[in-house]
């Protein structure tokens, strides 16, 4: 890792000090000081004791006159010294605490010089000088120091520029009423000499749209209806139907859950179970379904607990929303190092907010200024302060005693929360105490059992003649037996009591993982090189400084008593924020078109990709904000474009020239994600349970003695629920999901890989659950049509592929059925199951047109 410049520079400067020289100068001053008074006296002190040190040892790197202001700090004028550098003011008159130069020379974080501390006399001089009010005769304004981050240069990066109001170009086709989005796309295509691909065939369009909006295939009925609907509004009606379906939120909610690195266990080395995480999952699905405006969606996830709420229900939802910040993988590596743990916690929160909402890798600035983007290290700690001033209610930490400080409660939510939480928790505490007591009782009993055993051995070994000893041993044995009986009785009573308590739980409130304001909000100290033990000056809580440099947003100050989450949420969702809306519409675009206008969905910094259609991106970002940040309306207008409805045109010159479809002149095959593939198999085989399951089975996952998840619950993959409702424990995601590119839920990742692997093929060829669903599909097809094999084959294709079988398919399948032989019903089912499985495995089933 590189070193923060400002630290390096000062260190070298101070490293050159020699204690002998300083002492000599100090002695020389003693005599001169006597007899002087007031300001003159102060100035003399400065000239004698302070300036020589600064000149000789600091100006080399911190002099505006010399043009060297490392760390943004100059020490050669009064103003510059008080203005300070990127870490804060070097000198605050009469304020030892805030004068960073003192912290530096005292080795209090800044550690200068690193080799050897300055002689105490010199430090005392600086302390005295600052206590005197830091008299300093040096005139001159604070020079225009060179900040470590050149914001002016940084603002030239496209993504940091304000979203421009863009007028769509005129239609290149000359046709009227061409959608603005199409005009952008077609204009760029025309520049390269291409025309857009012709519209997709209706069945393909319906299949594409249904999957992309709901994650499920269209039913044969829906296909027929659309194919036969001659009205010009036919497609619009389909789109509105899909947007209104509750399955929409299950598809689009899952997109956000990727970004939110949603999981139901901690991951890392202590994979603790989180029984309440699923409420956040459901919140996200519901938010998508009711089209919660995106800015409000983000605000709720950062500070929903602090926002006004119209009802108890709304209050509960908003609180659950903050679960985003509580769901990160926590570092329980080091028992007793709570501060380190908290900094790791904040690191995850910074990353999920900055990358997830802004496409900005602020987390890279933990150890040093960001090497590529305008994010100084201080920004990182400004955000860390916001989160550290809040409490993360992620439930209990590891059970081991060293981790006591890591325990947190869960947040009771809902109308009854207040009323139910107290008695419930009291009951729970009582029960836990009883269990501890029981443990104690068992060890006490065991002590007596051990005593009894050794007495028994002693008695066996004792000589039969030694009657006295035998009698004594017998007496002792009797005592021990009595004790054991006594403990047995106590234990039985305790077990009975525990049993009663276990059965008599008062009603539980709903619990959620969430955030709340901390009791003592405070700024977070910058950590040198990211080392939690090396605290530097505290950095005022706030949003990335880039925002201030862009001059937008409420100039709201974070008050001492608040964390600053509300202000952070306001900054992020400010309509002037150049990143938030761009990042959002780009993701929506990517999910609909298979490729982002910016391909790096979570990085809009200088290491990210450039937009292929910058004007279109700005146009959409502007429209998105103007239209009230509505995700559904944005999707609706994009889906209704000609660009969305284009065909594959695989054999066109355009396809050959632009295989990646950077121009969006046609469509490309998109692989079904793990969820869509599995849900489609469930749906067409008639197995899918359409209602949302309540909660999660995460408590049934296999855990070890430390309550860490090892494997998903048994038979989880066989549950006929939509895949997003399967348990999502870190390091224990059902294998099928991982095989088909479900992302590692430890980090925000909005884009998925699209691999084609033999291991995926093996899954579809051999996995028992696939074979089971193929059999269900066979039973369905055989059950629905009495005896006509050709009709059955057609139905099978209608169900799976949204079209009847081709003649060649009819022939091949008939031949295959014959080759499998057997006339008995069981044998027919086997043969048909094998056929059905080939439809699940077919490229046409796995790819969207």
């Amino acid at each position, binding site marked *: 890792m590189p070193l923060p410049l400002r630290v390096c520079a000062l260190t070298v400067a101070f490293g050159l000090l020699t204690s002998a020289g300083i002492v000599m100068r100090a002695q020389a001053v003693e005599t001169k000081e006597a007899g002087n008074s007031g300001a003159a006296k102060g100035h003399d002190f400065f000239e004698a004791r302070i300036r020589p040190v600064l000149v000789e040892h600091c100006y080399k790197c911190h002099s505006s006159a010399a043009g060297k202001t490392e760390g943004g700090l100059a020490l050669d004028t009064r103003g510059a010294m008080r203005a300070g550098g990127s870490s804060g003011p070097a000198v605050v008159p009469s304020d030892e605490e805030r004068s960073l130069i003192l912290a530096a020379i005292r080795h209090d974080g800044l550690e200068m010089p690193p080799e050897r501390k300055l002689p105490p006399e010199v430090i005392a001089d600086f302390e005295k000088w600052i206590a005197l009010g830091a008299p300093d005769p040096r005139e001159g304004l604070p020079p225009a120091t060179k900040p470590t981050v050149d914001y002016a240069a940084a603002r030239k990066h496209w993504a940091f520029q304000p979203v421009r109001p863009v007028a769509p170009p005129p239609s290149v086709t000359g046709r009227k009423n061409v959608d603005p989005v199409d005009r952008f796309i077609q204009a760029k295509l025309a520049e390269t000499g291409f025309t857009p691909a012709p519209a997709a065939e209706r069945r393909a369009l319906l299949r594409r749209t249904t999957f992309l909006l709901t994650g499920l295939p269209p039913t044969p009925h829906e296909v027929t209806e659309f194919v036969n609907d001659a009205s010009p509004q036919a497609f619009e009606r389909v789109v509105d139907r899909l947007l209104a379906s509750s399955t929409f939120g299950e598809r689009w909610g899952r997109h956000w859950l990727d970004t939110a690195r949603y999981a139901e266990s901690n991951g890392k080395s202590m994979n603790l179970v989180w029984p309440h995480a699923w409420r956040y999952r459901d919140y996200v699905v519901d938010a998508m379904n009711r089209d919660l405006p995106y800015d409000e969606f983000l605000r709720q996830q950062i500070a929903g607990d602090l926002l006004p709420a119209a009802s108890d229900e709304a209050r509960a939802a908003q609180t659950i929303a903050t679960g985003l910040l509580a769901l990160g993988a926590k570092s329980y590596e080091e028992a007793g190092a709570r501060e380190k743990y908290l900094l790791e916690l904040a690191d995850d929160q910074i990353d999920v907010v900055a990358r997830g909402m802004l496409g900005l890798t602020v987390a890279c600035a933990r150890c040093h200024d960001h090497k590529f983007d305008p994010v100084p290290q201080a920004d990182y700690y400004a955000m860390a302060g916001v989160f550290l001033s809040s409490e993360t209610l992620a439930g209990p930490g590891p059970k081991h005693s060293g981790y006591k400080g890591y325990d947190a409660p869960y947040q009771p939510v809902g109308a009854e929360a207040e009323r139910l939480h107290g008695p419930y928790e009291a009951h729970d505490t009582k029960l836990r105490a009883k269990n501890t007591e029981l443990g104690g009782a068992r060890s006490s009993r065991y002590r007596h059992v051990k005593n009894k055993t050794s007495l028994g051995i002693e008695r066996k070994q004792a000589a039969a003649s030694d009657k006295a000893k035998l009698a004594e041993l017998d007496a002792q044995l009797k005592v021990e037996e009595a004790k054991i009986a006594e403990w047995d009785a106590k234990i039985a009573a305790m077990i009975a009591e525990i049993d009663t308590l276990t059965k008599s739980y008062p009603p539980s409130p709903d619990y959620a993982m969430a955030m709340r304001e901390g009791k003592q909000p405070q700024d977070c100290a910058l950590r040198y090189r990211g080392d939690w033990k090396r605290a530097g000056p505290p950095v005022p809580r706030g949003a990335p400084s880039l925002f201030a440099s862009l001059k937008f947003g409420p100039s709201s100050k974070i008050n001492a008593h608040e964390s600053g989450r509300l202000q952070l949420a306001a900054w992020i969702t400010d309509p002037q924020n150049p990143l938030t809306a761009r990042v959002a519409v780009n993701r929506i675009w990517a999910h609909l078109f298979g490729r982002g206008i910016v391909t790096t969905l979570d990085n809009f910094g200088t290491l990210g990709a450039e937009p292929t259609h910058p004007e279109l991106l700005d146009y959409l970002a502007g429209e998105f904000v103007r239209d009230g940040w509505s995700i559904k309306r944005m999707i609706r207008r994009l889906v209704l474009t000609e660009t969305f409805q284009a065909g594959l045109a695989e054999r066109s010159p355009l396809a050959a020239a632009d295989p990646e479809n950077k121009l969006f002149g046609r469509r490309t095959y998109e692989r079904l994600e793990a969820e869509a593939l599995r849900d489609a198999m469930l749906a067409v085989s008639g197995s899918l349970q359409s209602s949302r399951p309540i909660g999660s089975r995460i408590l049934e996952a296999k855990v070890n003695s430390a309550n860490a998840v090892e494997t998903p619950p048994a038979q989880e993959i066989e549950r006929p629920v939509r895949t997003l409702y399967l348990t999502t424990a870190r390091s224990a995601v059902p294998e099928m999901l991982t095989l088909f590119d479900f992302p590692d839920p430890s980090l925000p990742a909005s884009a998925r890989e699209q691999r084609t692997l033999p291991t995926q093929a093996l899954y579809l060829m051999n996995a028992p659950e696939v074979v089971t669903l193929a059999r269900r599909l066979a039973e369905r097809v055989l059950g629905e049509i009495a005896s006509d094999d050709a009709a059955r084959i057609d139905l099978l294709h209608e169900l799976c592929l949204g079209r009847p079988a081709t003649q060649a398919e009819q022939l091949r399948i008939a031949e295959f059925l014959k080759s499998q032989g057997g006339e008995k019903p069981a044998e027919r089912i086997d043969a048909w199951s094998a056929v059905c499985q080939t439809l699940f495995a077919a*490229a046409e089933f796995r790819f969207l047109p």
Partner: protein
Amino acid sequence: MPHTNPISRRLVSRRAVLRSASTGFGYLALAGLAAEQARRESRAATTGAITPPHITPRAKRVVFLYMRGGPCQMETFDYKPRLQADNGKPSPGAKNAKLLGSQWKFHQYGASGQWVSDLFPHTARHADELCVLKAVTTDHTNHPEASDQLHTGSFQFERPSLGSWVVYGLGSENENLPGFVSLKPPVQWGGARYYGCAFLPPAYQGLPIGTMTEAMTKAKLANTVHPSLDRAAQRRQLDLLAATNREFAAREGDVGGAIDGVIRSYESAFRMQTELPHLLDVQQGETAATLARYGIGNSATDDFGRQCLTARRLLEAGVRFVELTHDNWDHHAGVAANMPLRSRQVDRPIAALLEDLKRRGLLEDTLVVWGGEFGRTPDDPTNDGRGHNKDGFTMWLAGGGSRSGTSHGTTDEHGFRAVDGAVHMHDLHATILHLLGLDHEKLTYRYGGRDFRLTDVHGRVVREILA
């Protein structure tokens, strides 16, 4: 180069058979696709291998030992007496850092007198086989970017991985196995790119087995037996499936090769489901002595030992390119404790792999590559830690036509940067391809109207290190 081992001989005859059939592996069952393939831009997508090779090949297969995080050169293979003498002095590099010498002694080994630190006593026994590159350079000091460049040549764009290029260039040696296997690849930092094929057809993608964070004992090939169909019935079922997929490709078109990739994945899966599980189970067919030599059963070496032994089995069975991953060499702190730990985990297994390859006559045409995405700085910006160094670090090669018992290139006396014999990552890639008989300037794939190469417009074959 004469084929001196049984595997090579077997391959020659098999290759001859295939050439006479005018088609490459993987396509025997797929002749029906010929019409579709003809529309492809690239020649090799249809033939599977370069025939004849550009250059006389010295190596037939590669095993890449990826030391993730950037292992320290001056504590392993780059002896820096001056650095050790200057230990604790202010660094001439970073302003507030001290020079940090190796805490481990170096000794010379073998006839070549190759220097190896005491952290690698077992590998040191094979010093005469090593071709140590001491002045490797790369372009980026961030892990994700540098790791991308190490594996794909590019730190900016998604490009095919080295292994994919190799399989694209040479085809597969065994139709029952994938050409490229990556054992325990990392998931983070875009780890899928390290075995990804980007725009090359999906058939050239590496097969990941296990993941970095899981034990090798868990790295298995799942779903290898159909619950009810026997092999013959499953073959008929897959023929039906292949016909359906071919019809789909013919009807709708398949310009990007996506459908073709799916078709091949089933053929590949059908063949590998019988052979691969056995190869991955190192308990099958290995003696207790062999397992012990790899350190299997010893908690420190068990995991990488299993990887190395599995690699040998895969290479022997005809896998063209095997990558192993060992984590974590990113020692920003705690060098004193971490270096012995990490070195111990890999040293014995690597030595056993080299020994086995040598014994079985495989080392002469198997190229072993060891290294990370970059090296480390000779100074210590924290306490007992090292930064990232892209300007001069060490990787080594063994076998496969590399010049054994030599070292090439030097860094300055402290080890900050290359001063002589620098080998850029592009040069290393060009050289690896060269040893395999592939000209890095001719091994191209046309995509989107442009010919792409592993080395882009860079790369120089380092002739000084060719045997």
